[in-house]
């Protein structure tokens, strides 16, 4: 995504660094502004939650290794962690599907 599209000419010396700072602020500010208002809320929310669930699933698996001494209990927790990861993967897939639908 490009910035607001304003051309800036920088010259060395007095005021140059101020203009550079202003240009950077405009560029990034413009990008963030555009990002917020062009966001596909459902698609982006699904993607974000999907990623969080992927990582959470791994922490469930790691917790099973540390906290569960018995093999059967570990199997249960590892399976649950993988289930959470698959749910996250599904949400990520659907998030992208929603984004593509909007693009079309």
């Amino acid at each position, binding site marked *: 995504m490009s910035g607001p599209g304003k051309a800036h000419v920088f010259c060395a010396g007095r005021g140059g660094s101020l203009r550079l700072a202003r240009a950077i602020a405009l560029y990034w500010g413009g990008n963030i502004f555009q990002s917020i208002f062009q966001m596909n809320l459902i698609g982006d929310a699904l993607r974000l939650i999907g*990623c969080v669930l*992927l*990582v*959470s*699933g*791994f*922490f469930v*698996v790691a917790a099973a*290794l*540390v*906290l569960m001494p018995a*093999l059967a209990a*570990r*199997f249960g927790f*590892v*399976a649950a*962690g*993988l289930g959470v*990861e*698959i749910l996250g*993967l599904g949400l*990520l*897939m659907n998030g*992208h*599907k929603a984004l*593509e*639908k909007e*693009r*079309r």
Partner: protein
Amino acid sequence: MITVLALFSIMLTPFAAAGLALIHQGLGRSRSAAHAMLGSLCAAAVAAIVFVIFGFSWAGFPGATAHSFAAGGVRWDWLAALPFPAGGISFQDPSALNKTLVLALEMFAAGIAAIIPLSAGADRWRLASICAGSALLGMLLFPMFAHWAWGGGWLAQLDTNFGLAGFVDAGGAGSIQVLGGLMALAIAWILGPRRGKFSPDGMPAAIPGHNIVLVLLGCVVALVGWIGLESAASIVFFNAGVQQVAGVVVNAMLSGSGGCLAALAITRARYKKPDASLSANGWIAGLVAGSAAGALVTPVAAIDTGLIAGALVTYMIELFELRLQVDDPGGAVSVHAGAGIWGLIAVGLFGHFSEGTRGGHLLAQLVGVAALLGVMLPLLYGGNLLIDRFLPYRVDNDGDWQGMDIRELGAGAYPEFVVHADEFVPR
């Protein structure tokens, strides 16, 4: 003897990269054929350079110094801590022979992992971005997982730290194939589908590969590379002897054959005629799944692993395209990630181990799969999204329509005998 065999096997490994490159370019469109081959070469080149300079120092080898942290009463060894470049190895030092073999093998392995995502980004992934994505994979993410599985990291220490069994990835099904396949998924998401692939109501259009002969030749070339890769990894990381290496060769052929025949039979049953490109995908899926076990399974189990991988891949490709609307022209996500995950689980189900229980081995393999999905996929996706912000991955609409050869290289792959009646006429 075994060192010479390891070196010879490592020297066969680039054939796997060559085979995959042929398959990717054959399954893409003719207007992007040269770009696909050059992209593969660039991906392997960038991955090799960044891996040797930075990556190997983070991948390490068993017994090397490593970064670790304590949690839950155990130390989690997550990244090697060797000096840059090349882990400080001197090629003149005779005591560093094994480390040098690991470096050589992992350098090629990083290149193969970097080539896999090109399949999902065919016809629209820019060359500069291919290099950037490959650098991310070869420098940080491949070394990280390679350290966990092969370099004495926390996955390899599941037996000593948690009383299970060490995670087994005898031929790189996790470290190379699943990692590359998950990166392919991230790339397909970031790039979006090719123009005209999906109608406004989401129905996919068939965009067939342009040269199925090259695809099938690529399967045979890849077999040679896979035999080298699996044999070398078995010797270098699991101390396999000559007899076990012979077993690796037999099992690689059997699992690939099982995958191909299963895909052929399923497509014959479903579409009345066997599908050549899906059968080729089945062949690679069989090789990928079989590479998790090497010689740790019987020949019958290798055939079973290949058969299930080949069957799985035909349905997964359909699922990704029809239901999930992921445009993956070469089927890399299904072939490498899907079949690779199945292969890792199959080791736990069918493997013959001298130590540990079947349950412990299966659990260790599931933990490895969970690490790939729960840690590596978010890192691959987030890292590539970040690069995409600064160096856009996707070519513009004109480039998509024109083809990557003309757009990025200035000349087509087949200038004398391929005519695109509509595509090359200015709109």
